[in-house]
Every structure is written in C-alpha cells, then in structure tokens.
C-alpha cells in the first residue's frame, strides 16, 4: 500500500497538516501563557475606551474624546484615501511618461527616461523626506503666504475656501445626478446606434456638456445656495477654509511619482509588445493614428500591462504606511504607533493592521484580476 503514490501523498499531507496544527497550537498557547504570566491584558475591549489623542487629518468627525475604535476608523480612511488617490495619480503619470518614452521627440523621450531612472532608483522613504523637509518646508511662513484669489499656499498647507451648503442645495445635487443618468443613457444609445448603423456620435463630449449645463442650470434655478468660508490669516496659522496639509501632499507626491515611474516602464513594455504589423494593418485600413492606438494597440497592450500593474498598485497601497515617518496619520502611525503605545496591546493592534493591509491588497488584487479577465483575449 505504501507503494501507491496516492496513498503516500495522502500520508505526507496528513503529516504536514498535523505539524502545522501542532506548531500553531503551541505558538498560541505559549503566547496565552506568557501573556497571563506577565499580567498583560488581552482583547479588543480598549476599542470602546476614549483615545484622548488628536489626529491631524480626519475625514469623519473625530475629537480628542473619541474612542480608539473611532481613531482606528479615521486612520483606516486616511490609508484608503491616500492609496486610492495615489493609484489614480500614479496611473496617469505612468501612462503619460510611458508614452513619452516612446515619443519620436528626442527631448521628450530623454526627459521621460531621466524621470524614470531617477525616481525608481531612489528609496521611497528618502523621497518622502525630500518632499516634506526640503520642498514643502521651503514654502513661506503663514504670515507671508502666496495668495491667489481666496487660495493661500504656505508651509502649513494649501488653503482653499470651504463651501458651506445652504438650504435648496438638494436641487443642485438632484440636477447633477439626473445629468449623470442622462449621460449614461446617451452613451448606451450611441453605442447601440453605432453597432446598428455604423454612424458615430460624440457621446463622451456631449455628456460632459450635458452634466455641466444641467448642474449649472440647477444652480441658477435654486439661486446659488452655496456660501464660502474664506481662509483668513490669524496669529499663528490660517483659520477657516479647507486645508490640504503638507503631510498629505508630501506622501501623495512621493507615492504617485515613485510608483508612476514603475508604471511608465510597464506601459512602455506593454505597447512595445504589440507587433508593429498591427499598427501597419490598422493604417492600411485607413484608421487615424489616435484610433489605431485606442482600438488596436492599447487593448492588446493592456493584456501585458495589467498583471504587473496590479503588483504596483499593491506596492503603492502598502508603501503608504511609510507616511507614518512624516506625520501622515495613516494606519501604522495611529494604530501601531499611538494606540499601541497608549494601550500596550501589541498583538491586537499589529494583528489588526496586518488584517487591514491583507484585505486591502486582496481587494485590489480581486478587482484587477476581474479587469484582467475582462480584457483578456476572447477566443471564438
């Protein structure tokens, strides 16, 4: 019986599984015992206790008297926001620079090469320090801010008027939503018509016009129900208005330019992977250059681009944790930094952070896999 490959494999599987279970059990009980011996309390009860510490950037309501649970939520949102905006920006930068490297214009191509080689060869943390301590700190003090209309720019951030919505703003929101629904309908109709009759309709430009026109009309009808809270210089800082703190800006610039350099190479590789014959064939059919790119080259390039692009997105999301070093209050800073230190719950907080980064990465992965499948070659 031992000579049977299937049985042997099964025995080894069982053996391995029991070792894994035993080690896991040992580690867990060992941890429990030691924590008990040392009188270290465990559990997530601290989540309901008041945190008592401030957080610089919070997109949901948060005060010093909020709970640790709320502080966790604030940090979580900060991590999500920086990752999402970073991914969008990095993709835009990457596509532009990647195309620029393939440009026939010598200067543009060389500049793009210099950008890629510089940015991707310097450590990200160093780049964050550079943006935070060298570039943004060189801006003027609040007293001598650069001013443009009601916008202020200084060391403490970018200040803009803060819109305060009055009664009747619902009309504008309704108008906006309505215009979006109308645009979607328009695009669907245009596509159908093109498939049926071959006639082309500029659906995207007309939808943009539609959205702006309807929203603006709603604004006029409801009598501009917005007031602005204008930032004013005060004794120490600028008060009022909305502020984009330098910590956020520095992390965002560093993350998106760094990852953008990698994405540029991926985009370049993807486009180069499409055989030149495809372009020639498209041209011989009489397609314009822009249409050749959009309809022939890009869809084929995307198949090569998407898998490594996913890795870059995952890297960006995880690299956002470096923001802790320059005071951006993301997950590592708030949960593994302050919360861990105030409560001493190392295992809980670190475990929680691992769980969050794990799920964030898996979510991005899942989305990109879905997109990859959608873009893959459909063989008939």
């Amino acid at each position, binding site marked *: 019986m031992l000579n049977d490959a299937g049985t042997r494999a099964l025995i080894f599987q069982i053996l391995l599984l029991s070792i894994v279970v035993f080690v896991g059990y040992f580690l867990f009980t060992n941890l429990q015992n030691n924590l008990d011996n040392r009188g270290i309390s465990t559990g997530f009860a601290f989540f309901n206790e008041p945190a008592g*510490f401030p957080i610089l950037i919070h997109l949901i309501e948060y005060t010093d008297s909020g709970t640790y649970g709320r502080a966790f939520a604030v940090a979580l949102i900060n991590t999500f926001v920086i990752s999402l905006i970073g991914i969008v920006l990095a993709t835009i930068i990457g596509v532009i620079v990647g195309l620029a490297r393939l440009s026939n214009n010598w200067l543009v191509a060389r500049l793009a090469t210099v950008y890629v080689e510089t940015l991707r060869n310097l450590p990200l943390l160093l780049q964050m320090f550079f943006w935070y301590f060298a570039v943004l700190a060189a801006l003027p003090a609040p007293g001598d801010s650069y001013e443009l209309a009601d916008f202020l720019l200084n060391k403490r951030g970018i200040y803009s008027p803060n819109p305060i919505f009055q009664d009747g703003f619902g009309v504008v929101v309704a108008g906006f939503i309505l215009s979006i629904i109308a645009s979607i309908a328009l695009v669907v109709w245009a596509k159908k018509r093109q498939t049926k009759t071959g006639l082309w309709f500029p659906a995207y430009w007309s939808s943009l016009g539609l959205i702006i026109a309807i929203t603006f009309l709603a604004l006029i009808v409801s009598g501009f129900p917005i007031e602005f809270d204008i930032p004013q210089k005060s004794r120490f800082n600028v008060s009022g208005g909305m502020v984009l703190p330098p910590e956020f800006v520095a992390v965002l610039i560093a993350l998106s330019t760094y990852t953008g350099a990698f994405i540029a190479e991926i985009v370049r590789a993807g486009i180069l992977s499409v055989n030149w014959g495809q372009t020639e064939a498209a041209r011989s059919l009489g397609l314009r250059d822009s249409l050749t790119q959009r309809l022939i080259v890009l869809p084929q390039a995307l198949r090569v681009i998407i898998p490594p692009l996913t890795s870059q997105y995952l890297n960006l999301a995880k690299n956002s944790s470096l923001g802790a070093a320059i005071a951006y209050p993301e997950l590592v800073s708030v949960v593994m930094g302050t919360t861990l230190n105030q409560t001493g719950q190392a295992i809980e907080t670190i475990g929680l952070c691992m769980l969050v980064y794990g799920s964030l990465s898996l979510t991005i992965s899942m989305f990109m896999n879905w997109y990859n499948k959608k873009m893959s070659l459909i063989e008939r």
Partner: protein
Amino acid sequence: MKSNVGKLLSTAAIAATISTGAAAATLDDVKAKGFVQCGVSQGVPGFSNADSNGDWSGIDVDACRATAAAIFGDAQKVKFTPLSAKERFTALQSGEIDILARNTTWTYTRDASLGLDFTAVNFYDGQGFMVRKDLGVESAKDLDGATVCTEQGTTTELNMADFFRKNKLSYVPVVVQKADEALSAYSSGRCDVFTTDKSGLAAHRSKLADPSAHIILPETISKEPLGPVVRHGDNQWKDIVTWAMFVQVNAEEMGISSKNVEKIKTETIDPEIKRLLGAEGDMGAQLGLPASWAYDIIAKVGNYGEVFERNVGPSTPVGLPRGINNLWTEGGVMYAPPVR
C-alpha cells in the same frame, strides 16, 4: 527533548513577540551572559546619548551602569539597545532587554496593564512647550490656533490634548514618528510649538541652530516621573534596580561621593555607612549581590548628585537646574528609604 523542541519553537515564536526563555530569574540570566542589556533612547542628550565613539552617557545610562556595578563591580558591563518610544515596552516584555531606562514616565496604565514594573524615579519631569521667541508668546494659554509638533508614542500626545481641551484652545497636532524628525518639522517652521518633557525640551533646544531664538514657556502641564522599568514578576531583579537608585540618593545625603568613598569606607565609625558600604555585615547577599555592591555603585558611577551634575546639570549643554530633583533635605523630592 522537550526543551529542545521548546527552544526551536520559541525561536519561531518571535513572530508572536514573546518567547518562553525570558520569564525566570533575570539576575541569573544576566550573571550567565556577563552583562546587563539596557534599553535606551535613540539620542536624548543628558539622558541617553551616544558620542562619536559610540560611548553612551546620561542619567538613564548611569541607572544601567549602577545596576551593572552592583552585580559585577564593573560599570562597563552594559550593552545598549537604542529604542524608539513605541518599541520600548515590547522590547522589555519580550526579554530583549533587562532594564528599560529610556526617560519613561511612570503611569498607572503602564504599571498596571503592560506587564511591567516601575522601579524608582531617577528624574522628576513635567511637560512644557517651546516656541520661537519672535512669536511673542509668553504663556501656553496664548497658544490658541497654534500648530504643535510632538513625537509619537509618548504620554506627551495625551497631555497636550488634555491641556488644549481643558483650556478650550484650538490647535493643529503634527505627530511625527521620531523625536529628531519632530524637531526638524519644528525648526523648519511646520509648527509654532514643540512639546515634550521640559528636560527633553532643554536637550532638544541645545541641538537647534540658534538655541537662544527659542524659549521654553513657564507652564508645566503634567507630572512626568521618569525612571527605569523592569518586567513584572521578577521581584528580586526589580529590587536590585530599585536599590541601585536608592543607594545613590542615600550616598548623596550622607555626603559619600565617588571621590571620598574609599577614604570613608576605611575611616568611618558610623554604623549606617559601614552597613551601606559593606564594611560591616553582608547586606548584598539579601539581593544575591556581593557585599561591596553599594560601594561599587558609588565608586564606579557616583552618587545621585554627581550623576545629575555630570549629565544634565547647569555646567552641561543641557543645563537644567537641580530644582525639584534636589534632595528632600535641600527642598527637592529626592527621598530614598534607608539601607538597614
């Protein structure tokens, strides 16, 4: 067999932060390895700071040296582990270090729920604010609307929040992971105010380009008793670290210093001093230490007054007055139980 498996697995258990080996008698472990592993800061002048040769000095460093002197009769048998504020407790809990002497504030939560024990207070501190002179601020109550820089993972964050809330002042917090970067953020003008313990403020101010352009505001917004910390549950070890500190305070009170300890030991007729210096009886044995333990501490490290003057006193760059850290007989609160 079991112990081998245990060792192997506990190495793997580093992932779970706590290993099996470190629970028992720390003194035996320390004697076996031949040195004290001491957790210190990453550089706070006067408290724990490495010079260009990598030699550590400071009040906290001397707390570890005193313990090493008591055990080995040699103050140099110490190895240092620089730790950030947020790493420090985990390092101690996991047995990576034997003593944590890292300007750590003694608080209820830390003592009660972290599996740690505070020993004695080697410096009474309090949190304060540092601002640029040209702002014209004279009191912390004037700081409404200011941006405040501080290091992460300390009691400072909470005290700051409490102070501003209590006084109904608004502020913008900028919490940076490491003290040095918090200080750069302050010196680059990202913040109006830098806050930490007053001793730390004095130390950090000495690192700035133009120290005289910055002032420390008069308010002290918190009590910060700083002292060495050990793991909970090893009472003998806790007693050793505690009494190494008490001996230094008692020595100063009795007028014994590193300079005259040799002479006093041979000449004195005072039974209390004789007991302390091991000329009579064997007090050290009660702690598992040699009879000359207190003598060694005073001879190799000095009394508390010497330690203070050498590291943070008015003649040093940190330049702190003795103030509340004076002996109880001199108007301060330094008071040690008697050795008998």
